């Protein structure tokens, strides 16, 4: 941990390898309605990450044993396409995709008004087309937009951003090199209207001050991303 050979990932001017300042977010593009057959969908390009999310439902929950009498269930399937990275990924679910599906489901369950649709199911399919770093954040954020696009009632939209530590400097929105060879990674899911936290994971070590800095970066970035999500959903409707 902590090095990328002899390459410095932060230069003497405090800029990162891709020219960003420590608090900068990669360029983001959001589209809605990209899957015509789905009830709601979203395509999000975040740096070189690209995710397509389709939402179906609420629908009858099958098999019946997964039905809950007092609320709907969310079925999240996160999957990385075999061609999404430079090394081919074996198709199908693996331990990592199951974990990300679960944390995404938990985060979304805290905002969707599930009690309005007892015994039903909302299916969220997250397909990562291109992966660089932070695909769980892209998937969760795009899923929020797709759910809103599908007309699913929610108290707020989840925005997920990750910060981390590279060469002892806290940076926001890690790219692939920073993610692979950095010292820490802190993805968070934030509700921008209330500031509540619905998802947090941490990999590596951060001092309390560094954690605070990473937290602040994530909250600032979440506000920027939320602005784009709102623009995408309002689109040409105004």
């Amino acid at each position, binding site marked *: 941990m902590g090095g990328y050979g002899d390459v410095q990932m932060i230069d003497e001017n405090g800029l990162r390898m891709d020219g960003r300042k420590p608090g900068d*977010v990669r*360029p*983001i*593009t*959001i*589209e*809605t*309605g*990209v899957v*015509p057959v789905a*009830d*709601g969908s979203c*395509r999000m390009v975040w740096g070189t990450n690209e995710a397509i999310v389709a939402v179906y*439902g*609420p*629908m*009858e929950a099958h098999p019946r044993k997964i039905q809950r*009498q007092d609320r*709907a269930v969310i079925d999240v399937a996160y999957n990385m396409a075999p061609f999404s990275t430079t090394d081919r990924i074996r198709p199908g679910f693996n331990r990592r995709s199951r974990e990300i599906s679960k944390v995404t489901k938990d985060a979304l369950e805290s*905002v969707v*008004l599930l009690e309005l*649709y*007892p*015994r*039903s199911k909302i299916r969220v399919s997250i397909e990562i087309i291109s992966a660089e770093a932070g695909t769980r954040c892209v998937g969760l954020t795009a899923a929020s937009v797709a759910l*809103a*696009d*599908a*007309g*699913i*009632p*929610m*108290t*707020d*939209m989840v925005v997920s951003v990750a910060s981390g530590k590279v060469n002892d400097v806290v940076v926001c929105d890690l790219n692939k090199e920073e993610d692979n060879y950095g010292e820490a990674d802190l993805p968070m899911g934030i*509700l*921008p*209207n*209330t500031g509540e936290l619905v998802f947090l994971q941490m990999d590596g070590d951060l001092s309390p001050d560094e954690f605070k800095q990473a937290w602040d970066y994530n909250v600032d970035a979440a506000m*920027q991303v939320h*602005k*784009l*999500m*709102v*623009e*995408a*959903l*309002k*689109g*040409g*409707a*105004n």
Partner: protein
Amino acid sequence: MNSRPVGQLDNMSNESNADGPRNSRRSPVVVPGEDLGPSEGVEAGHGVLVVGDRVKSTKQGRMNRKGNTISVSPLHTKYMPRPGDLVIGHIEGCTNNIWFVDIGAPFNSILPMSLGPSKVEFGGTRKVLDIGDSILCRVQEVEETHQSVVTMKGMGLRKIRSGALDELDPHLLGHLIGKGGSFLRAMKMETDCRIVVTDNGRLWIDGDLENILEVRKRIENISSDARIVGVGA
């Protein structure tokens, strides 16, 4: 594909875009979690929630204020059955005396043998309506648990054997039908098609193939226009 890029970091603009000038007369579009103002003296209608002393939207849609009631007309909706609704359903399964019908709602409906299209012997449900068949039926009752029962006892309720089926978001039906049914009537006259519009957004179009295709094209236009300009209910 009815998508278009709508948000990029450095080219955000509130000015007119390629779709033409934005229509400021329409009520504003809101998104889930958006603050709609203080809750004091305000009644919360559809699609909004009172959180503390603020009113917040829970859906993407157009905000309406009628008197002291604030509501949100969603841009996308799922059909929720109500007793008396005329619907088109697809048979999804059956037992000896019940059919399970997909009516496009979050929950499947049941069609008991006693409310079927004709006299059915116990165990003979598949001989009358098989899985995959489409039916024109009416919602008889909706329970508190959202379980609904449909019936085929009534004038015009039948198994659909000809023509084509199409779908439209339920909240766009008003745009298809028009004021006093004028738009739908004109479409029927122009295309010489029989068009049955049901409450769950499904349509049965019967006529010549060319005319059916023309109707489907017009319906597709309504749907895509709604996507672009965000037509509300």
